[in-house]
Structures are given as C-alpha cells and as structure tokens.
C-alpha cells in the first residue's frame, strides 16, 4: 500500500526513511516523463506560490527549483538576500514572518548556516524545503544523485560508492552519506587529511568507511562522486596549492581505472576542470554530470508536489 509523505517539510535526509526516499524517486520518474514532453507543463500546482529564498548565491539550484515550480504551473518567486540586507538588522524569524504574510505554499531556502530551514519550519506555515544549510544537508542533491545512480545501476543496495574531496565542508557529502547508507550501499570517503574528519565514521550507523587515500576509496567502486574543491578554502591552508590537490586527489582516467569497469562518475557542479576532475573524465561517457542536472528538475518537481499535498508513487 502507498506510504503517504505526510511531512510538510524536507529538511534533511537524516529525517526520512528509506521507503520515503524510494517513494520520492518513484514520483520523480513520472515528472521525468513530463519534462520530456513538447509542452512541459502540468496544472497540478496551479495557483500555488513557491518562494526561493536564497541567502547564498546559486544559479544552478535556484534555476532548477524555479523550473520545477513553473512546470507544475506554480508561481515561482526568487529572493536573493544579500548579506547587506541582513546587516540592516532584520532577524531570520522576522524575514520568515514577513514572507508568510504573503501566503506562500512552499519556501525553498538556502543559507550559509546549518539549521536555518529547521528554524523557518517552526515559524512558517509554508512547507519548507532545504536547498542547502551550511555544511549540514542538501537533501534534493542527494535525491537527484540517487536517481541518477538508480537509472544506471537499477538499485542502490549493495553498491560501493566513493565520495572524494572536501568532505568536511560538504553538505552534499553528508546528505549522500545518509541516503546511500539508508538504502544499503557502502560508502567510502577520502580526501586531504585536513578535509576528512576522522571521527566521521561515528556519525553514521553502518556502511561508511573513511579511507586513508583516494586510491583505496575508489578501488572497486560502482560510483565515484567527486566533490567540488572550494577555492576559498585554499587561503585557509587546508592544502598547499590547487595543483597539489589535482596531483594527489584529482580524478584522472588512471585513478578511475581502479573502480569497476562500468563505474559511473558524479559531480554536484560546478566543476573545476583539471583540479578535482580531469577534463578527460568529465567529458567521458562514464560521467553522468549532465544527467544529474536533468534528474534534478524532476526530483525537485516531485518534492514540491509532495510537500504541497500530493501522494507518492508506488514504483
């Protein structure tokens, strides 16, 4: 029988069950079909208001959510809050209450601090979707990554997934680790020692392994997930230079050969060609980076549909 997604909000993968994750992905399948049509629009969310409240700049995720809302016939509004307007003194709660007064049905929020979506969920009547909060979670990214993996590998259970890069600061890594372990995959993480918390393994119940080197993590992997190296970190002396990073951790064809023959490569984007990922890999047929973007819209349509009252598919 169907398991209704009764939650109003999507704050983190941490809070949802494996059954709910599969339900969201099955629902997203149907929206993929809508996105393949000539007229990419269904009247489902007609008259609903979706506000994209982005405290951190993002073109890709914001556009993805905006298209998702519009294809469902909802009214999408983008608000980019620059740090200067925050310094004008308005508190987060006041911002939320002000927006609520305009009767939105759904607020998609991205913020540099963890826990902001959770705060909004307490205060606002709208459904809150977390589009990234600090280094905590980015649930829709993990869901679209899962959909990409499922498309190619049929199932996530039993897969070996390697996540390489700046794990410490990555909400993408955290959400993915939660999702993949919930669905029965084994996750290996690797990166510069300064960027991979050694005590990470305690945070996850089972299925996570912190590897000492990139080669060890990628060895025999079905999926290799490369995280973006954030250039800003370079100034904080986490690693010597970008060139050093590329030499020791960059995903080249050579390193990729350590993975399974049919292994796939994912990257949340935007990528730094030649640094965390070699062009030859990024442009190869094993790289599903553009597929991720495609599934991203379908996944976000599914999330918006479910958050505003729809029921999930049974697959």
């Amino acid at each position, binding site marked *: 029988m*169907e398991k*209704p997604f009764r939650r109003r909000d999507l704050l983190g993968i941490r809070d949802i069950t494996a059954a709910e994750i599969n339900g969201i992905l099955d*629902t997203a*399948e*149907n929206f993929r*079909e*809508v996105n393949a*049509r*000539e*007229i990419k*629009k*269904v*009247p*489902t969310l007609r008259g609903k208001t979706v506000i994209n409240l982005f405290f951190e700049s993002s073109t890709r995720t914001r556009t993805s959510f905006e298209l998702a809302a519009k294809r469902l016939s909802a009214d999408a509004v983008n608000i980019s809050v620059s740090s200067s307007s925050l310094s004008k003194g308005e508190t987060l709660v006041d911002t939320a209450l002000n927006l609520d007064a305009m009767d939105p049905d759904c607020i998609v929020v991205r913020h540099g601090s963890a826990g902001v979506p959770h705060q909004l969920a307490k205060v606002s009547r709208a459904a809150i979707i977390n589009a990234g909060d600090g280094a905590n979670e980015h649930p829709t990214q993990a869901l679209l990554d899962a959909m990409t993996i499922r498309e190619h590998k049929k199932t996530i259970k039993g897969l070996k997934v390697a996540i390489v890069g700046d794990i410490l600061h990555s909400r993408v890594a955290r959400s993915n680790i939660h999702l993949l372990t919930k669905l029965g995959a084994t996750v290996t993480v690797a990166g510069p020692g300064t960027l991979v918390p050694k005590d990470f393994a305690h945070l996850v119940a089972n299925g996570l392994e912190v590897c000492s080197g990139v080669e060890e993590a990628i060895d025999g992997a079905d999926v290799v997930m490369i995280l973006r190296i954030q250039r800003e970190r370079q100034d904080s002396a986490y690693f010597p230079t970008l060139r050093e990073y590329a030499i020791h951790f960059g995903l080249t064809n050579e390193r990729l050969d350590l993975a399974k023959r049919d292994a796939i490569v994912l990257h949340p984007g935007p990528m730094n060609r030649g640094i965390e990922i070699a062009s030859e890999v990024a442009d190869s047929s094993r790289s599903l980076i553009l597929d991720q973007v495609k599934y991203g819209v379908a996944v976000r349509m599914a999330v918006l*549909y479910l958050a505003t*009252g*729809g*029921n*999930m*598919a*049974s697959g």
Partner: protein
Amino acid sequence: MADELNLVEKSRIMDSARMKRALSRLASEIVEENQGAENLYIVGIRRRGVPLAERIVDKIGELEGKPPLFGIIDITLYRDDLSTVGANPIVNRTELDADIEDKIIVLVDDVLYTGRTIRAALDQLMDFGRPKKVQLAVLIDRGREHRELPIQADFVGKTVPTKQSEIIKVMLKEYDDLEAVGIFEKPSD
C-alpha cells in the same frame, strides 16, 4: 479507489462472460463508427481503463487484422480536486509514445460517473497535441443524472442507474481475484 473501503456487494451486474461479450461489441462498434482502424489510437485511463483498453486493442486486431495504436494516461496531475481529496491516488506513468496529432483517440475507462475524470483526460490530451477526434468508450455508464459536466460516452457496455450511496466496481484479473461488475453499497457513517 474502492479497494480501501469496506464495501458490501449488493448485486452482480456482469459476470466474466458478459464482460467479454460487451468488450467484443465495443470493439466492433468502435471500428464500425470509425470505418476501420486507420488512425485509431486506443488510450486507457489508469488504472482500470488500461486492461479494458488492452482487450479492446486485441479484439480490434482480430477484426481488422492489425491492432490499433495503444497508449496509457494517468490523470492524477490534472485532477481538479487534488487539494481536497484525502487519500490521493498515487501518480503513475503516462505512456503516449505515438504522436496523437491527427489521430482518432478512443479513451477507455471502466465507469463513467461525474465526468470529471474524462475532463481531466481531455485537458491532458490537449497538452500532447491536436487529435483529429476524441471518443469515449466505457464499460459502465452510471447514467446522465450523475454527470457534473457535459460529458457523454460514445460507446457503452451497459448503462446502470445507481444511487449516490452506491459504487460500481469493475473487477479485473489484473487487479482483483475475479472478473465481474458489481454494485456495492458504501458503509453508512
């Protein structure tokens, strides 16, 4: 939809033999009305319209030597009552692989009641293109008095007058233990 409720069957309208004959007749009527199977596109409405449409497609294949085009639509995203219905039906795939442009679409559903499902199906079809014609075939028509929109069926298996407190259930081997059509009484609250 009626699966979840505790319904009591009041009377059996059709057994499996009668259903088979009715579907045969519907298939014949469809090709007669459209003078053949040229440009014919049989589209089943999920869920129960789908197996019925498949059987009609097979029968037309027998009659004309070649089966017509077949498609499936799920109207969940086009319903007009999404925010009010409690237990929403789950949304499933729409499969209209062939172009509907200039085709004669025959929508197939199990029961015609208020007409709102068909309204949703028409809206959805229009988003896919411009068919030459759209016709409707149903196994059971519950009668004009229940219609909430000006919708009519072109091909009907059987017209059955009913009360609002009743539900007509078309049981099919694809989803149920038997093949039959019965009138069920809703439990009194």
